[in-house]
């Protein structure tokens, strides 16, 4: 009983707070914005609607001509098909899942931490070479990755990490975008925040973990979304030769490419391939948006 009582006003607070706080808003303006969002929203939601409907279609509806977006007789046949195929696979599917967890996990966490660590001095310290390093990162994003793949392959072979998880994880840790994103957010933090901690005798390391990172939470959560998506979509086909090392994405694409007989399973694969990053996205994004109501750390 007591618990409910403490929670109710909080919820009330939570829903009403933004409305109370919004200044300068007109009803006409709100209506217009709703309308724009509605029309565009229908178009943007199209792929979600298609993927969900497709994976529930029985085979005859998948091949129906003309194609329909909405499913008439939804079934879970496609998923049972997919699981049967998975069970027959030469390498147990749990192995693929483990590989994906290792590659995606280390690739995402590693990149977020390393990029943030490097971004903090670039944003807030003054040292020789700062501008050059930062410009190098920004410019590197503008070179077509399709071309650098070959030199990349040569370097990875030369380092001897070919056919190893590291061949996917290490390059992922050093993508340029993450550093740029984190640096831009850290730049906004008031320097006085760090100065006062420094006066209290905190080390740079401590300032980074205790002050900088909590204050740029929306940034690193957003970066985690991007990086997870990137890593999840990686089939690793270029660097991983052993079947035992390949990620889930590779195995699923293999099934999806099975042709006509596997069209149903392919639709289920498309659903799973999209669903995992969406779940991750929802977890992170709701946290990104929640920080707004709780944070008051700016001076």
């Amino acid at each position: 009983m007591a618990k409910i009582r403490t929670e109710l006003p909080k919820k009330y607070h939570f829903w009403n707070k933004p409305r109370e706080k919004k200044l300068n808003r007109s009803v006409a303006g709100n209506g217009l914005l709703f309308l724009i969002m509605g029309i565009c929203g229908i178009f943007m939601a199209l792929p979600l609607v298609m993927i969900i409907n497709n994976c529930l279609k029985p085979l005859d509806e998948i091949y129906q001509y003309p194609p329909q977006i909405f499913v008439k007789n939804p079934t879970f046949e496609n998923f049972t098909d997919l699981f049967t195929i998975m069970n027959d696979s030469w390498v147990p599917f749990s192995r693929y899942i483990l590989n994906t967890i290792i590659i995606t996990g280390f690739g995402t966490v590693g990149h977020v931490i390393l990029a943030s660590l490097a971004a903090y001095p670039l944003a807030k310290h003054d040292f020789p070479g700062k501008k050059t390093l930062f410009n190098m990162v920004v410019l590197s994003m503008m070179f077509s990755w399709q071309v650098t793949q070959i030199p990349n392959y040569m370097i990875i072979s030369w380092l001897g990490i070919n056919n190893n998880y590291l061949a996917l994880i290490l390059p992922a840790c050093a993508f340029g975008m993450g550093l740029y994103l984190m640096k831009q957010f850290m730049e906004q933090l008031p320097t006085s925040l760090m100065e006062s901690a420094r006066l209290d005798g905190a080390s740079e390391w401590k300032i980074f973990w205790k002050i900088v990172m909590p204050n740029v939470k929306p940034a690193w959560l957003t970066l985690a979304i991007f990086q997870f998506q990137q890593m999840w979509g990686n089939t690793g086909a270029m660097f991983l030769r052993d079947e035992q090392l390949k990620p889930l994405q590779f195995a699923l694409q293999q099934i999806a490419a099975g042709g006509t007989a596997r069209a149903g399973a392919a639709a289920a694969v498309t659903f799973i391939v999209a669903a995992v990053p969406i779940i991750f996205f929802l977890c992170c994004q709701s946290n990104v948006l929640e920080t707004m109501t709780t944070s008051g750390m700016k001076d």
Partner: protein
Amino acid sequence: MSVAKKEMQTEMTYDAAAIAKRTGKLGYRIKKNKSSYFMMGPYFILFFFFTVLPVVISILLSFTYFNMLEWPTWNGWGNYVKLFLEDDIFLVSLKNTLIFAVITGPISYLLCLLFAWIINEFSSKVRTVLTLIFYAPSICGNAYLVWSLILSSDRYGYLNGFLIKLGFIDEQILWMQDANYILPCLIVVQLWLSLGTGFLSFIAGLQTVDKSLYEAAALDGVKNRWQELWYVTLPAMKPQLMFGAVMQITQSFAVADISIMLAGNPSVNYAGATVVTHLLDYGSTRFEMGYASAIATVLFLLMVGTNKLVQKLLGRVGE
């Protein structure tokens, strides 16, 4: 003290400072910032091996003939001369890419900003759902294949069927086979697809804008949401605007996948050819990596120049 002496003295102190700057100071500053270098170390070591080195090698390769089987042979400026003087298709693809970038870049950038800003007006739960819906095309892998249904060239294609039903056209239009329609259609698809990185970073950026700024602005006489946007929100999220611009440039200049998937490579009369489809044509079909590298280098320079220009423009936001 005479004026001349005074001048000499200031000059001397200036000299001393300059000497200190030149000799001792750099080493001193590096030593003083040891912790900064330690923090950046792991990232930049990896960055050097997996980004800087490959880019440098690619640029060097652009001056060679390299078919990926034999050792590259030096070709000087040959690839570049061929690119601009002999390769008509490159010029077509360059033109298409510029049209693409000039149209989709700014429009998509403004849409990202507009949608992020509108979504920020809603309550927290609605915001999460709306963000998902608008981000969906980017998250659903090859979601743009939906468009092959919509733009299908028979009567059953959604767009054709719709237009015929309404009586605008009598015969189906070959959207992806008619050179007149390919580029406009691709531009629409790209716009639809482009609410990605920039959009999410804007949403995150809006979360970090200090709320007290809005109250202060209201007191200062900001009357409606548009003024609030221009005078408060945008200046407060300038770093994110810069980031979004770079992402937009890298995206809109590097359009390739949608063109290859929807219009094919090569597309009819090269109407859907972009610099990157041309690059892929040479790199992965003809195995002429030297030439492909030259294309990549030209594209790189183009993007760097555009970036310089855009960053200058963004410096004026909120003034």
